[in-house]
């Protein structure tokens, strides 16, 4: 599996001279599976940075939405394959009682908020609620579970040819208390992230910022590190950067994370700060494979 980060920012697109290294586009990750097919995780403004010709060869494109906050869907109407009548696209997302996924997305992507209605998109588009059980797309087996964020929100675990990716861009596992003190069964997202070869996880706040954002559905960096450690993630990609955090501030966040990670006896090379445009191959965790 290979991932290409279209956008790693959270909450709000944040372009500017202080955001050039990590980028300002909101959440979107392209996953290339071992059989060459692609999944797109979330459709924030970063979706504009993905290859515009995905699906041109007849490939069925699957977009998996963790939830419907704007920073995860705002790019949908700016993604060229959705305007190609020959392209098949399925949008997967969390279910909600009594209202279809299509109707919920159309609430945002319709007048007066947008010039083009999602119902006008010319591609062959369908909407599906993510199943409660695992399902297959291409060579991947996918599991979606609700995780702790505001509103119905999913995390995804994607397994393909012996490697695993866990995607938790918006997640506040520490809402219940210190993660060190909780049994795993009480940690939101644990079963999705357990021993994932790559964990993509929310790192929105510094520890100093978190108290004034308690309950907003995001993590402080110490929570991210603690969660990854408790779940025994092989590598961790820090994601969903706060729109106020400049490149230099994100460097500081990474330094803080590395310090905390190393203090747990972990290899600091396993921590990566998400940056728009970066590509990362997902490989089996060497500590678990013994290589």
């Amino acid at each position: 599996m290979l991932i290409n980060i279209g956008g790693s920012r959270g909450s709000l697109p944040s372009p500017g001279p202080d955001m050039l290294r990590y980028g300002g586009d909101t959440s979107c990750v392209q996953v290339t599976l071992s059989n060459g097919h692609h999944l797109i995780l979330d459709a924030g403004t970063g979706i504009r940075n993905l290859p515009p010709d995905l699906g041109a060869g007849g490939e069925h494109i699957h977009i998996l939405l963790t939830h419907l906050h704007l920073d995860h869907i705002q790019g949908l109407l700016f993604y060229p394959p959705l305007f190609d009548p020959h392209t098949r696209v399925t949008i997967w997302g969390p279910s909600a009682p009594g209202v279809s996924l299509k109707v919920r997305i159309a609430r945002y992507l319709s007048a007066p908020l947008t010039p083009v209605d999602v119902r006008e998109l010319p591609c062959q588009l369908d909407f599906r609620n993510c199943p409660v059980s695992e399902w297959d797309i291409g060579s991947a087996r996918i599991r979606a579970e609700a995780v702790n964020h505001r509103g119905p929100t999913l995390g995804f675990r994607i397994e393909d040819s012996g490697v695993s990716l866990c995607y938790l861009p918006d997640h506040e596992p520490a809402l219940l208390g210190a993660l060190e003190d909780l049994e795993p069964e009480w940690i939101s997202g644990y079963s999705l992230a357990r021993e994932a070869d790559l964990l993509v996880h929310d790192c929105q706040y510094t520890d100093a910022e978190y108290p004034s954002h308690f309950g907003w559905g995001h993590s402080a960096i110490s929570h991210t590190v603690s969660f990854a450690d408790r779940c025994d993630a092989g590598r961790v990609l820090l994601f969903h950067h706060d729109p106020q955090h400049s490149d230099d501030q994100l460097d500081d966040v990474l330094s803080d994370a590395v310090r905390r990670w190393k203090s747990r006896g972990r290899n600091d090379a396993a921590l990566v700060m998400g940056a728009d445009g970066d590509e990362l191959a997902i490989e089996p965790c060497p500590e678990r494979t013994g290589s």
Partner: protein
Amino acid sequence: MASQQHPVEVILARGFTSNLATPAFLVDQEGTLIFFNEPAGELLGVRFEEAGAMGPEEWGWRFAPTALDGRPLQLRELPLTIAVTESRPAHSPMRIRSSRGDLHEIEVTAFPVVGRSGPAGAIAIFWDRTK
């Protein structure tokens, strides 16, 4: 290895009940008492951290629930059991005996926790009728 992770609705229910000032129980879909909060611990005379998780048979008799006329209540009659097994809210006055031997007259309201994956457990809130 710990048991399987609870659904997020149950995790959030624990967070919710742990912050309530009213006594509350939380059971999973099998009826296992997986958490009760500090006010419930005060009422029952034992903290959850001391008591730990209990199967339905254990918590069903441990606090010796009776009707107000003294008739012992069967497990299936308890609001929490009804909420889990019949997926509907239930309410009942009753007496319970704490682990200290005190008798409490309480009212119990229980309701199911239904999540994205279906029924996930139930919450019971206790009201002490003597206060």
